[in-house]
């Protein structure tokens, strides 16, 4: 698939954690370009920096040096309020550990990103119903996260990530905590995202998800290696 325009552009990116006198280089000289509608799979061993890289692309974390431009926005030059808005409108993020708000119901968890961009109430209700249908959890709308299984919670997390119809979708090991059967449902959602032409970056070891990739990259000891070449 040919990219029309770079959605994500990373160049010479480093992330270093300072712990006392020790420095840990998590990401080293990362260079990556992701085009619009591309499906990128990041793989690599545990501790290789996959989550950190996704967090930086999603503006949850900041690099120590280098440049990251997403949708033409130099993320390092933006303030926290801009980034909050950016995360809400442009990025859908699915975490490995679901990260639902335990005090909100399934429907409310899906609705609150829409409420932040001030969507009218009727649109929110319609949007929530549609997303619940996509992830197959209409019957769970008024349940709290603690009443759901892991797979159901992950599907709610997908629905929440899609709430504002973000052009960039990030997922960090979305099937890492799920059994094969439950993972299958998640794979189906990814297939739909690909069909819809959405830009997706996912860190995973799941071969079914990897099969969907337009670009595969491998992280090892903080360095990125392209598997396409």
């Amino acid at each position: 698939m040919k990219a029309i325009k770079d959605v994500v552009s990373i160049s010479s990116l480093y992330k270093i954690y300072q712990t006392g006198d020790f420095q840990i280089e998590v990401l080293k000289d990362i260079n990556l370009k992701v085009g619009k509608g591309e499906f990128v799979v990041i793989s690599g061993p545990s501790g290789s920096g996959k989550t950190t890289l996704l967090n930086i692309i999603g503006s949850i974390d900041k690099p120590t040096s280098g440049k990251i431009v997403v949708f033409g926005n130099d993320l390092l030059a933006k303030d926290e309020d801009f980034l909050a808005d950016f995360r809400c409108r442009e990025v859908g993020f699915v975490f490995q550990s679901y990260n639902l708000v335990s005090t909100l119901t399934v429907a409310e968890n899906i609705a609150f990103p829409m409420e932040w961009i001030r969507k009218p109430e009727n649109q929110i209700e319609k949007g929530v119903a549609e997303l619940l249908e996509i992830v197959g959890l209409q019957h769970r709308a008024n349940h709290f996260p603690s009443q759901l299984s892991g797979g159901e919670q992950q599907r709610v997390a997908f629905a929440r990530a899609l709430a504002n119809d973000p052009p960039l979708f990030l997922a960090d090991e979305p099937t890492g905590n799920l059994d094969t059967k439950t993972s299958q449902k998640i794979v189906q959602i990814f297939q739909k995202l690909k069909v819809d032409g959405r830009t997706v970056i996912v860190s995973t070891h799941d071969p079914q998800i990897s099969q969907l990739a337009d670009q595969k990259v491998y992280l090892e000891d903080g360095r990125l290696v392209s598997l396409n070449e």
Partner: protein
Amino acid sequence: MSETAFPINDLLHRKLQTGITLISLTLCVASTLFLLLFSEKIGFGILSTVEGKLTYGFSVVFSQFMVFLGVLILVTGAIIISFIIFVMMSQRILDIGLIKGVGCPNDLIFGYFMTELLIIASIGCCSGVFLGIITDLASTSLLTGFQVSQEPPNFWLALLVFCLFFVLALIFGAKPILDSTRIEPAKAISPTHYFGLGQEGEFRVMSKSGLTLKLALRSLFRRKSATIRIIICLSAVFIFVTVAVAGGIIADKTTKSWVENAIGRDVFLIAHKNMCDHYQLLLSKFYGANEDSHFDYTNEQYLVCEDMLNQLNMEPGITNVDTRLVLEAHVEEVQNYTINPETGATIPVGDGRKGESLIVGVDSDKAISKWFFQGKSLEKNQAWNAMIGDSLAQKMFDLPLVQSIRIFDNDFSIVGVCLDPIANGNVTYVPLQTLQNVTGLSKPNIVMIKIDPAVNRKETLDHMREKIETVNPEFMIYELNEALDKDLYFLSYIWSTIMFLPLFSLTSASLCLIGYVMLAVAEQRQEFGVLRSVGAKPKTLLNIVSVQNLVVLLSSYAIGISFGIIITLLILVQKPLVTSYMILEIAGWLLVSLAATFIMSLYPAVQFSKKKISEIMT
């Protein structure tokens, strides 16, 4: 790691929590000790009401106040300590679970955390005693002009307070530690247990503003145990603050009005120079000054001649001319009988006690003073009635209003007991004419006047001075405002010192609230991270915590103020003087205390909202 190294390192690594616990404990101990030491020094403390300063009636108001504040400060201190230790331990339950999970025996864990508790309790109580003594020394050194005891602090009280709070801290701290060490590791590492979380209810999707409120309230009610504890803790603090602030202001203004009405504002004393000096001395006995016991009131030179009285009466700018005869005499309690209201039996009253009292002959129609009294005041046609000061009533009489006082071998029926700072309440007012008759002194020895506010005060005074000098150059005009202001300043100083106490408690309460907010933020940490990662701005998190703090504060505030006002008005101050300005003043101070507590409570949330999302979610 050795058994002692772990608790010390643990406390050092948790600087903020350790600091908050230590400061809270220090302030609780310091405020209690200061109250005890200071009240003992000014002489109307919780331990005993002694003579020397202030009249008996004033002492009663102060000592009642001190007793209430003492009880409240102890209760508040105990609740604060209980809460702060609860918070400290709630934050450790997870660690205890993890330590147990890797196989550490219960007794070793108990030892670790009891050592921490002992360190905290020892340092907190020691520094509290130190701060309490320093505050007491600073306060009393500022009162040197009022002859307040400058003796070193009573170290037995310091020891008593140290032991009391040390034991309280150990009792309140040992239980949660013991409970924590007994729970299963799986439970200990469950948020449901260490945050005391409950079951959620069902709610509809709501608007954006509703979302903040909903997130705030649901989290708040999820931490039922901690929320109820902090509300109880803050309610106790606000009761204390209300009693101290509202009660302090009302009592301050009320007692000041008693003094001001008894002496009179803008009143001028005209008397012989020596008499003027002595009269000032009599008024300053209120705050502990010693009078000249050999003063000869009956000296002929001190009597005000007819000519001078005529001149004063003819002066157009003078509205009142209050002539008085001031003497000192031997007085005796006259025994009487009264009827026991329960049995109907007649019982004797009085022991025939004897003493010395200032005797003031006053013309009740022209008296400038408006005393606060029990019973009734002197009346024109009641020649053998007397009104006595509260200290004399307390010292010499059982039931003064049914008894008589013997002066110059004549019995006067006591019709009233008044509050008057002169001679520190050791005074007897009788009709001027009667006193002149029984003493054979036909003239008064002091005159009090009030100038018409409409006339030029300076001109009138200058004119009067001229006339008085012409009649008798030994006589002078003395403005009593100076003596009055000294008495009022003494009252103000004591009340403002008492009002200083709520600051200690408020700071402790704010620290408790900060501890609670730290617990709340820790409990919501993951959720806040999620909210931030899906687009919530830092101020959204601040709003959520602010709503939670406001709910907790306002609930406690409502309870605290309601009980505080009831205690103040119904129990502490008799016939309180409450003006609309005072209500505004009280409301202002209470709102300031609420706002200050609220702002301080936001500190952990502000710090938290500055964190990076990756830090929050780690």
